[in-house]
């Protein structure tokens, strides 16, 4: 009898848990309908809206964007699969790619532009299975959105010569190994970083800038290199405090790192990777401006995210798609630069005008090639 009672409790617990999530989903009915068309869409819209806002600030940027928008080439129907280490909602690396895909889908329509994605493929074995599966299911372009997928990719690609594969951050298309259908892509994060550095140097009054990085590698490293150079070239007296948390996902530690920077006197903060949501939260609390990178991070701190280098993968993706449809399945290295609009700046209206001007000048300088980014060696 006692056991029945306990069994009852067990069922009750499960039931409650279910009700807990079920009830919420139910109450969420209308937005939950987008479970199929994930919620990130709203973020996307905001991002677009946001950029539209900032564009009013600067005609040049607006012109470029506008030109871009009208520049969608005609393409054959295409099916694209994305395998990513993080999630479509990480406010960083993975989300930036996903957002760009969604943008293209919105333009071409779901019938002509099919997207499939797999999240949380931290484990390379699983990712490899997913990549192979997508290729077998006839996707035209399979994007392995992480440097760790390279080894697997070069094993799989030769089995599907008519399918294009892409991976980054890298410049290795596997040519040496005789692979011909792999694109490599690489955001030149130091460019955006440099511009942000210039911006930050103009914004700081205390003369101290705090940077929260994940690990000193890859994209994040380039960003730090560029940022530091930008600050230094603007005002060598400004102190850069850099801390790496040692992981991409340790939100709590990132938040504390931001706190530390604040206590150490920093009045402008920046950082990269999905963990920075914690740090943005701290910035939000302290009302200290935050400079974002990769995806639009304003949802994590509406008021303080004053500028973002948005990774806009649209040009890169279009490049790959058209190339694929022209029968060239890979072998090219594609870079996201300021010049090719792979990196787009979003500026908040409230930013001091001189800072924005200096930043825009830096942008132009990099595009023109008049500014050469020289990274200081860091110990």
């Amino acid at each position: 009898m006692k056991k029945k009672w306990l069994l009852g409790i067990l069922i009750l617990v499960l039931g409650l848990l279910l009700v807990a999530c079920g009830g919420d989903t139910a109450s969420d009915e209308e937005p939950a309908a987008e479970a199929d068309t994930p919620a990130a869409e709203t973020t996307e819209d905001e991002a677009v809206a946001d950029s539209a806002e900032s564009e009013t600030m600067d005609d040049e940027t607006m012109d470029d964007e506008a030109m871009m928008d009208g520049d969608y080439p005609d393409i054959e129907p295409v099916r694209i699969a994305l395998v990513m280490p993080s999630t479509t909602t990480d406010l960083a690396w993975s989300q930036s790619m996903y957002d760009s895909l969604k943008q293209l889908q919105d333009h071409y329509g779901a019938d002509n532009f099919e997207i499939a994605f797999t999240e949380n493929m931290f484990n390379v074995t699983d990712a490899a299975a997913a990549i192979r599966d997508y290729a077998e299911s006839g996707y035209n372009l399979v994007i392995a959105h992480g440097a760790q997928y390279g080894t697997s990719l070069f094993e799989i690609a030769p089995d599907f010569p008519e399918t294009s594969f892409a991976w980054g951050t890298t410049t290795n298309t596997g040519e040496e190994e005789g692979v011909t259908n792999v694109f490599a892509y690489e955001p030149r994060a130091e460019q955006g970083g440099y511009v942000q550095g210039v911006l930050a140097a103009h914004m700081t009054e205390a003369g101290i800038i705090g940077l929260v990085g994940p690990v000193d590698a890859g994209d994040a490293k380039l960003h730090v290199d560029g940022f530091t150079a930008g600050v230094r070239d603007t005002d060598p007296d400004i102190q850069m405090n850099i801390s790496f948390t040692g992981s991409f996902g340790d939100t709590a530690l990132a938040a504390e790192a931001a706190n530390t920077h604040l206590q150490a006197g920093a009045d402008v903060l920046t950082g990269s990777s999905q963990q920075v949501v914690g740090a943005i939260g701290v910035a939000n609390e302290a009302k200290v401006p935050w400079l974002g990178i990769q995806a639009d991070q304003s949802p994590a701190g509406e008021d303080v995210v004053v500028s973002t280098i948005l990774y806009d993968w649209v040009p890169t993706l279009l490049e790959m798609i058209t190339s694929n449809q022209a029968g060239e399945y890979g072998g090219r290295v594609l870079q996201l630069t300021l010049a090719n609009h792979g990196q787009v700046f979003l500026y908040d209206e409230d930013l001091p005008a001189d800072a924005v001007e200096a930043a825009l000048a830096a942008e132009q300088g990099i595009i023109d090639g008049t500014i050469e980014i020289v990274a200081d060696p860091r110990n």
Partner: protein
Amino acid sequence: MNGELTTIAIILGIIHQGIRLATPYLFAALGETFSQRSGVLNLGVEGIMLMGAFFSFYVASETGNLWLALLAAIIIGVLMGLFMAVVSITFQAEQGISGIGLYLFGLGMSSLLFKTMIGSVTGITGFSELQFCVTDSFCLADIPVLGEIFFSHSILTYGAFLLVPISVWLLKRTTWGLKVRSVGQNPEAADSVGVSVNRARYAAVILGSALAGIAGASLSISLLNVFQENMINGIGFIAVALVYFGGWSPVGVMFGALLFSTISALQLWGQVLGLNISSNISVMLPYILTIVALAIPFRRAAQPAALTKPFSRGEN
């Protein structure tokens, strides 16, 4: 080096941060203390914290009411605790393993719910730092040195530290605490005087889990004000170790929590000050420290004798 950053400022910063960071450790570890004192090793704290963090964040972002959010964390903590209790007390499952199961369940469920119910990472306004303003112009937080260290934390941080004497009182001075201590030490003896061993353990595990829920909430609606998948990142496991570290006493646990949080703060400051310590080493440090502490012999005496041992009367 900027001249404004004095040594004192650094030390103050480290202490202030150490106190702040101790909050989740304290809630979770004090909760686990109750559980272990009653003889149940709840290794699922991490999973409960994740669920607590998620639910409080969700409620906060939906209603904007932080107290309701905290309540949500407590409720989900109680439910998870009940689940753990049924499995490990009634069904007498191996506690180390059922805890891992609970952790994975919490990890999976919190991520799943986050994906389906929130979808993207957003910020909320969480519990803000209390200022203790005496007048409009003067707040205790403005007191130099002391104010910065002691009077500028969120209410949950104060709650965590207030929980230390409360825990001592509950364990030492109440009939319930006496029952909890006894069933963890000698359940047969407690049973023989009419104490329901399982009921006392259920209560301790559920209370502990509710506190773990609050610990999760302290991250998502007070310290960080965001939710992210797997955001607890091992704090729950350290909290379990802290109980051993603190010799099963709330005060010991508090010092352990402070030690750990201060090490984290030190590491962050080390980087800011340009001291080149690898973050990997400093992240490792608390774990190594725990193992060393566990190996110190005098602590063993304090271990509840019936820890991890399910109780049955020999019947059935």
